[in-house]
């Protein structure tokens, strides 16, 4: 079996909780607690989960914007987790990120052209922002090249996100991490941006890691989907499997929360909707055994004592003692 573009093995990130004047470490937050997955060339993996489950941390770990506590990241034949700062800097040509907030992720003092040109200049692929590749990328992302001399504050959220996408794609990276790229946008603009991302992937063969909290957005673009809960992957499989045959109770609950476009179907489904009670437990002190057991309607004694492993079941992999059939 050939090596996939990205392979993550047992990735872990703990953040220390510090208190007091001397910054004593009084505890740890297990933001990401041993997750493994792969992304093939040209493939899109959707990573979903609710706020605070560690999906954005995972995204930043893969790009080494954060250093992992443990685990391995293999990308494009390189051991990303073992590279020095300077080596990783060179590698960034092939791995880019699009941020969630298009208002915060663009430097207000730089023109659109300067922003989009920066990755090229940094990696020695262009001398300055007059390189034709810059305008070409701006246009590929659906903006007119006349906008190149404008500043970010003159644009709407959707247009700014196009600038952010142009910046991420201008070096033609192999992997693009999309960290909730549409969740800050209006619903009408979300679809435009998702279509743009899909078109560009078809054209250039990028691989995407698509991080989102919204399953319907993920289903639009991902071939495979991984569901995260409290620092762990609870289920991973193809989009069809996850949506039509969810096996983990958490996945099931998430899918039942996706609104349906047809009001008649929606009304019928409302009666069987799974509504989770309570909040996500603190990642500083996660529950023993299965982390979802405190909110799970199927939980039994075994769930508190032994932690379910991610096992292949049917076409997906699931971490549950009592998966759905």
């Amino acid at each position: 079996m050939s090596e996939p573009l990205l392979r993550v093995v047992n990735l872990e990130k703990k953040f220390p909780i510090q208190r007091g004047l001397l910054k004593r470490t009084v505890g740890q937050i297990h933001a990401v607690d041993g997750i493994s997955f792969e992304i093939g060339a040209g493939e899109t993996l959707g990573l979903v989960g609710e706020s605070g489950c560690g999906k954005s941390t995972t995204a930043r770990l893969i790009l080494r914007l954060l250093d992992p506590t443990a685990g391995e990241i293999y990308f494009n034949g390189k051991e990303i987790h073992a590279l020095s700062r300077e080596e990783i800097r060179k590698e960034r040509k092939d791995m880019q990120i699009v941020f969630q907030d298009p208002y915060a992720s663009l430097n207000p003092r730089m023109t659109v052209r300067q922003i989009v040109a920066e990755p090229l200049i940094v990696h020695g692929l262009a001398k300055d922002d007059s390189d034709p590749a810059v305008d070409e990328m701006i246009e590929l992302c659906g903006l007119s090249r006349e906008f190149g001399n404008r500043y970010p504050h003159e644009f709407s959220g959707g247009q700014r996100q196009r600038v952010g996408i142009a910046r991420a794609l201008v070096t033609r990276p192999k992997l693009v991490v999309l960290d909730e790229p549409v969740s800050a946008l209006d619903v009408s603009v979300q679809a435009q941006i998702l279509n743009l991302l899909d078109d560009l992937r078809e054209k250039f063969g990028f691989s995407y890691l698509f991080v989102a909290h919204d399953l319907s957005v993920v289903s639009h673009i991902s071939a495979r989907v991984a569901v995260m809960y409290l620092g762990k992957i609870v289920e991973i499989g193809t989009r069809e499997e996850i949506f039509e045959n969810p096996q983990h109770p958490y996945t099931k609950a998430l899918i039942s929360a996706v609104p349906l476009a047809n009001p008649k179907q929606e009304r019928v489904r409302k009666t069987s909707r799974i509504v989770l009670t309570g909040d996500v437990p603190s990642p500083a002190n996660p529950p023993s055994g299965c982390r979802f057991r405190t909110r799970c309607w199927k939980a039994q004694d075994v769930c508190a004592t032994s932690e379910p492993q991610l096992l292949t079941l049917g076409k997906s992999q699931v971490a549950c003692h009592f998966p759905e059939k």
Partner: protein
Amino acid sequence: MSQIEQIPQSLSYWQDVRKRFFGNKISIVGLAMLVFLIIAGIVGPFISGWKYDELGPDLLVGPGSNGHWLGTDDLGRDIFTRVTFGIRLSLTVAIVVTAISVFVGVALGGIAGYFGGWVDTIISRFIDTWQVIPFVLIGFAIITVFGSSFWVIVAALVFTGWYSTTRLFRASVMQVKSLDYVEAARATGASTKRIILRHIGPNAIPPIIVVLAFSVAGAILSESVYAFLGVGFREPTPSLGVMISSSRNYLTDKPFVFFIPGSVLVLLTLSIVLIGDGLRDALDPKLRGVK
């Protein structure tokens, strides 16, 4: 595809700042006052026909008499010459003090804010410790030991002023450093040098410019307070504080001797504060595009 209607050629940040600063009447008034006082400070001592320490026969004469445009003090010295000289002295001291404080503040604050960790802890705790030492007493001690020369007074004022610029710049850098676009720059592969020069620097410096203006005004006042308390410049050096201090005995019968240097001090400080106010509004990115 989304298109927006044609909007006029966009202004760069600094063009926009200039436009908004000069569109503000109050900051223009401040600027005009300051320019007037600076010109008076530069040419005043040359055109008055008197030397600042020249003792004359006319003691405490009112403005306009015997060729003394603003009168004379208790030793018969020309007040106009001394006041214009005082503007020169006050501004020079204040600008030198602010320049040194800003240099120290940007260097130390930038290091503390950018690198964080133990470097930041050391610098921050040092400032905390420094702060609890009463600043007027430090000034007193320095001047008492080393005498009241120009550089000693500058040093005394820097000792009491450097940490506020340091803390401010540290906070400013820390805030900008945590913004998404800095992380975005790191994610594109930009070097640390490029991140500091292109992304953090240009966005962390504007708040400093405003403080710079207020710090000049503060230094002018502190210098006068020192002089008044007898630990700053001393007679016959024509500092505004020295003049106010020496004239306080004549406050009731010859008020002009007191009020002329006093109002020049107020106008000088006020003009700088007005400019600082205008700069604060002009530099605020949230007010961009607001007329």
